[in-house]
């Protein structure tokens, strides 16, 4: 199965070809890019069938050798990596097909697809990597791809700022990841994951190192997966083209952090303290982001906070000690969130509006978009029997029965209610209710005119339909089917694999909470919108805090202005005054002064030079003679 390396290699090759020869290719290289990612998907299917026959395997070749350590790079074909390859290649393929129409006529059409290929290649390499060093290289490649795509319309200042913010925020976490990897290498002498797992299991790694390295690696994962307090970049990342948001939010970027913790879970299992931290961060993220999503007005921003919240759920599942369940939720969320963002792009394409207050009644005008969007949204809110319901239920069960405190269950249930509220709100505001109007100036007078809307072309709706169907049925793989022992056990290669289980009271409570709060919200919005406004007025403080997103951006801005810039000013002063004036200009001035003094030795009279030569020769002779 060493051919699995082709999955990242083909898109990477496509990137290079499009970059160099894109302008002469049909569709500026778009078709090549789509073909490449489709080939990756084929590789996935072939590898999946092979793995079913012969089991997971690792292939690696030597990379370089230094100081007695051999560094390798290779692919690890295992259930967890193949699952990710499947998600990434399929979602990327759908999004690239969608982009054909969405990005039509853009000046940098070819470049867009080239970077898409790069992004997908980096992510595929990341999930297939068999050692941490190679994984880190791919990890940074993903960061680069996201930077280029978020800042795709860099002429817009906000897009350039968002790209920078995403890159720097994730970089801060990445520093932690790199140090964590190096700590593990120093302790075990290997980057190979299996070797590290063996060393940890054999107790060869000291407790302190293990705690620090797992914590630092979690920092990297929290940065990429937008956990509090690194979540700030993700909502801004919607400045990129909408299909890019779909890609980042569904498959290629934010999934990396959850995947990293899941794949390194044998290490985390040995550090229960870190699992508590992960669970705490995940629960905070899940609840906080879901609450912020309730008051946001930009359609993509609501979805972005929804993503942050769901990533929090995945982290919570990891913290509860269930990587399989986290991966199940990742899978269900990837398909559903891709549909939601593609739907948002379709709405934006059809109406040229981004604010949900300017939308309404789109169900009739954009039926395909509406139906796929609604299915995906209620799936994520946890409505049975859609995919999101099963994964969410599994998470809640893991939290209630696992190693975690009951408080986590309460937080998770509140987050479920909050998710249901924002889901109901966005569905109602966009697709139901009164037809939207927007204020424009017509012949010098302000008028409210109806928003024009039309359904998007087939190239855009077909990917949405496919993704929505897959997202709706992902719940099926959680069950046992003959030899297949259920997804959550299969993916972690656990021997006591078993299918999904239900805790009756919890399932009922979560489903009732989700559906009930959605019904309540829709009824309120429909029958008495005034009461919603009144309700908001009653809690001005909560309203303001949520609208300012818990003041995270303000806090960071304050930190940058007051601390970072002050320190930078100090360093700058030191550089100008001490390093430049004294260190660099000082020797230059001294040399100049001495040169000016000494030049008067040059009389130009040649008998002076002759005398100097004669004296020198005599002195040399005397010295030689005296010896």
């Amino acid at each position, binding site marked *: 199965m060493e051919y699995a390396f082709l999955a990242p290699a083909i898109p990477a090759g496509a990137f290079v070809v499009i970059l160099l020869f894109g302008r002469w290719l049909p569709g500026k290289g778009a078709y090549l890019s789509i073909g490449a990612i489709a080939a990756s998907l084929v590789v996935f299917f072939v590898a999946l069938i092979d793995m079913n026959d012969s089991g997971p395997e690792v292939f690696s070749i030597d990379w370089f050798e230094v100081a007695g350590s051999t560094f390798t790079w290779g692919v690890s074909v295992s259930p967890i990596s193949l699952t990710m390859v499947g998600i990434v290649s399929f979602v990327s393929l759908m999004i690239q097909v969608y982009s054909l129409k969405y990005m039509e006529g853009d000046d940098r059409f070819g470049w867009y697809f080239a970077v898409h290929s790069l992004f997908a290649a980096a992510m595929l390499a990341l999930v297939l990597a068999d050692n941490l060093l190679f994984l880190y290289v791919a990890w940074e490649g993903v960061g680069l791809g996201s930077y280029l795509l978020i800042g795709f319309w860099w002429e817009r200042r906000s897009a350039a700022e968002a790209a920078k913010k995403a890159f720097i925020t994730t970089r801060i976490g990445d520093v932690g990841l790199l140090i964590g990897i190096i700590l593990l290498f120093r302790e075990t002498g290997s980057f190979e994951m299996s070797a590290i797992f063996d060393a940890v299991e054999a107790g060869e790694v000291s407790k302190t190192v293990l705690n620090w390295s797992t914590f630092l690696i979690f920092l990297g994962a929290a940065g990429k997966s937008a956990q509090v307090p690194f979540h700030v970049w993700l909502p801004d990342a919607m400045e990129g083209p909408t299909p890019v948001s779909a890609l980042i939010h569904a498959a290629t970027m934010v999934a990396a952090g959850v995947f990293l913790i899941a794949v390194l879970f044998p290490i985390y299992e040995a550090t229960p303290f870190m699992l508590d931290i992960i669970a705490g961060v995940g629960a905070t993220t899940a609840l906080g982001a879901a609450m912020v999503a309730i008051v946001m007005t930009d359609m993509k921003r609501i979805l972005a906070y929804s993503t942050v919240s769901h990533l929090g759920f995945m982290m919570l599942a990891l913290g509860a000690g269930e990587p399989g369940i986290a991966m199940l939720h990742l899978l269900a969320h990837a398909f559903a969130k891709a549909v939601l963002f593609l739907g948002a792009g379709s709405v934006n394409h059809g109406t040229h509006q981004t604010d949900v207050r300017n939308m309404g009644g789109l169900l009739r005008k954009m039926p395909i978009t509406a139906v796929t969007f609604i299915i995906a949204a209620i799936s994520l809110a946890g409505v049975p029997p859609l995919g999101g319901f099963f994964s969410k239920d599994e998470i809640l069960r893991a939290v209630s029965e696992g190693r975690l405190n009951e408080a986590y269950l309460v937080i998770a249930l509140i987050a479920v209610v909050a998710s249901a509220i924002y889901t109901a709100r966005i569905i109602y505001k966009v697709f139901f209710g009164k037809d939207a109007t927007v204020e424009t100036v017509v012949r010098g007078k302000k008028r409210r005119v109806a928003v024009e809307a039309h359904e998007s072309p087939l190239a855009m709706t077909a990917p949405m339909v496919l993704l929505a169907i897959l997202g709706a049925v992902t719940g099926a793989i959680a069950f046992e089917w003959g030899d297949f022992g259920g997804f959550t056990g299969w993916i972690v290669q656990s021997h006591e694999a078993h299918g999904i289980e239900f805790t009756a009271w919890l399932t009922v409570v979560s489903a009732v909470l989700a559906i009930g709060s959605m019904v309540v919200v829709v009824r309120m919005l429909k029958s008495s919108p005034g009461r919603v406004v009144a309700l908001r007025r009653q809690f001005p403080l909560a309203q303001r805090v949520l609208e300012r997103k818990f003041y995270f951006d303000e806090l960071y801005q304050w930190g940058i202005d007051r601390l970072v810039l002050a320190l930078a000013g100090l360093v700058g002063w030191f550089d100008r005054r001490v390093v430049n004036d004294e260190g660099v200009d000082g020797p230059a001035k001294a040399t100049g002064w001495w040169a000016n003094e000494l*030049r*008067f030795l*040059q*009389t*130009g*009279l*040649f*008998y002076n030079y*002759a*005398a100097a030569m*004669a004296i020198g020769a005599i002195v040399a002779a005397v010295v030689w003679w005296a010896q």
Partner: protein
Amino acid sequence: MDLELLHFQILSAALFSIGLYGVLARRSAVLILVSIELLLNAVNVNLIGQAALVDRPPDERVFGQVLAIFIITISAAEIGLAMAIVLRLFRNRGTANTDELDTMKW
């Protein structure tokens, strides 16, 4: 009285000192060149004296003579070139007095 090595060396040293004095003290470029010839010939006298009288096998002593012939050849070429330069200098500047030739100073 037989000639001894010391006599050659005293003659050589005297010639060299006179030549050195001439190079340093004369102001006329032509006289400086003449003094340089004295320096070279002082060396030649020394070499010939060594070649004739030093206590060495004959096939080693012959190097002194060979070297002296080299120096004569080179000094002939040198004086030809130097005189040409002095001549051009005099034509262009109207003087060969080295006191006045200080355009290379700081």
